[in-house]
């Protein structure tokens, strides 16, 4: 199910652990990346086979961790931190601004599938707050103007230049 390049990564990962099950979390990350940012039962079953555990085990584990998603995210997944340090310097207002701007609440995806928002607990960018993660990149010291600019840039980024989660 994995592409040949990813399969190489999978094999390499499995060789790094004494027990196949140990590679479960990293493999779920790879599966999620391969499947446009979310997991379905097909992938859960496949990872279960690779790790030699039951699909139920994989599902139990995957649902415990917030980074594994069971619905497709937007092309740009905006993960906005509102935790303590960000909360002190305007994180919640940044989230509100984004929600207003995109017309969706956190936990949802825009109709065109371009953006999704997730409210985060501490993302470890406290000294550069308020901050968010866009797919895999940190964007820090956010202001409403910076957000507007970023959204404009992302919305007009041509398909072939996209950075993907």
């Amino acid at each position: 199910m994995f592409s040949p390049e990813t399969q190489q990564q999978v094999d390499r990962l499995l060789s790094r652990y004494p027990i196949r099950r140990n590679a479960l979390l990293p493999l779920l990350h790879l599966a999620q990346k391969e499947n446009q940012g979310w997991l379905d039962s097909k992938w859960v079953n496949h990872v279960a086979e690779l790790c030699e555990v039951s699909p139920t085990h994989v599902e139990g584990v995957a649902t415990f961790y917030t980074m594994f998603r069971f619905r497709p995210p937007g092309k740009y997944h905006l993960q906005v931190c509102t935790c303590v340090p960000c909360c002190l310097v305007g994180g919640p207002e940044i989230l509100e601004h984004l929600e207003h701007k995109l017309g969706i609440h956190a936990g949802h995806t825009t109709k065109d599938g371009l953006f999704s928002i997730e409210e985060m607990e501490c993302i470890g960018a406290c000294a550069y707050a308020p901050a968010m993660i866009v797919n895999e990149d940190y964007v820090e010291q956010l202001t409403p103007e910076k957000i507007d600019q970023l959204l404009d840039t992302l919305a007009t980024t041509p398909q072939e230049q996209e950075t993907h989660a």
Partner: protein
Amino acid sequence: MLEETLVLFRNIRTPGYDGTLDSYRKAGGYQSLPKALAMQPEEVIALVKEAGLRGRGGAGFPTGLKWSFMAKNTGKPSYLVCNADESEPGTCKDRELMLKDPHLFLEGMMIGCYALGCHHGYIYVRGEYFPAIKSLNKAIDDCYREGILGPKLLGGDYELDLTVHTGAGAYICGEESALLDSLEGKRGHPRVKPPFPAVAGFNSCPTSVNNVETLTNVTAILEMGADAYKSLGSPNNAGTHLVSLSGHVNRPGVYEVAMGVGLREIIQELGGGVRGGKQLKGVIPGGSSSPVLRADEIDIAYDFDSVGKAGSMMGSSAIMVFDEDTDVVKLLHRISRFYNHESCGQCTPCREGTHWARQLLRDFLQNNGSERKLNRLQRVGRNMGGTTLCALGDAASMPIVSFLKKFPDDFRQYYATAS
């Protein structure tokens, strides 16, 4: 004027330094590891003990002592697992090291593995740290290519592999036994202790779990020796530490200071004081779980023992500053929401208590507070402390108890105005 003491950040603060293997070597890197390899493993542990290194993850437990607990001659492999699941709100120091000077940290990790007789070390990095994960993987690949890692560590006769393991968004996995369960491919549930990881850790093998900054300090100790290292800090609090300074200050950032410098000086002189010319209201001195200090309580030395004596804790050295305009009820609500979200659900006091605390605080914010609810909040807070398998119960409890004690009028305001 307080200045940084640069040991771990020495390279990072050097203009033009980019953290690559090349630049690390030019800056004198990978000189500590051969020193360690020329010693017996027990001697390395003794040196770390002698230097007085205390864990930088939050608990401040003596690292050398932790290492000496490792079960020997068990017939099983032993492991060093680095806890890079930096998630305590306010803490963002390990990420600086992993991003900007990964080899300085990796060298310490290699020395640790050698001292403990481990042939495979795992670095458990929180999943959100994509840039740090990339940086570490690249650094490790470079080490393999240059023959630093692999069957012949630094060309000698010691075999060592290092693997970066990615977490997936769970604060609880920063607790060492939950981290090990997570590393094994399970839900991150803290274990019943004993047995401690030193006896039965990763896959039931002897394991030591150490923080990124702690291991990075090991490189420095090998380089400068125990006495010079000790002389940097205050008595019983050796060395320097990385302070994550955030909140309402003019210059938030990660600063390296000697242990025991003044807390107020850090905020005033490194952080440039409270922003907007406002008055300081309080400081959360060691990550969101540490008891809060009022503005009049921060004339203390910033090290494990002094902050402890002041009734709080230095934890992961994450200082969050808030000014006079801050609504502490709102702040505590946000803290409680965090612990409620991150509770793994195993122990009743924490699973239920964090939920109740959050609900009660929400009531206050909706002008639905009362003296009864205030007392209930206090009870819920107190009852979570010391009643759970891991420290998350305490972490959720300490802010509630301390905020109510230090800022009672702020809470009363919410129901005085309502009635």
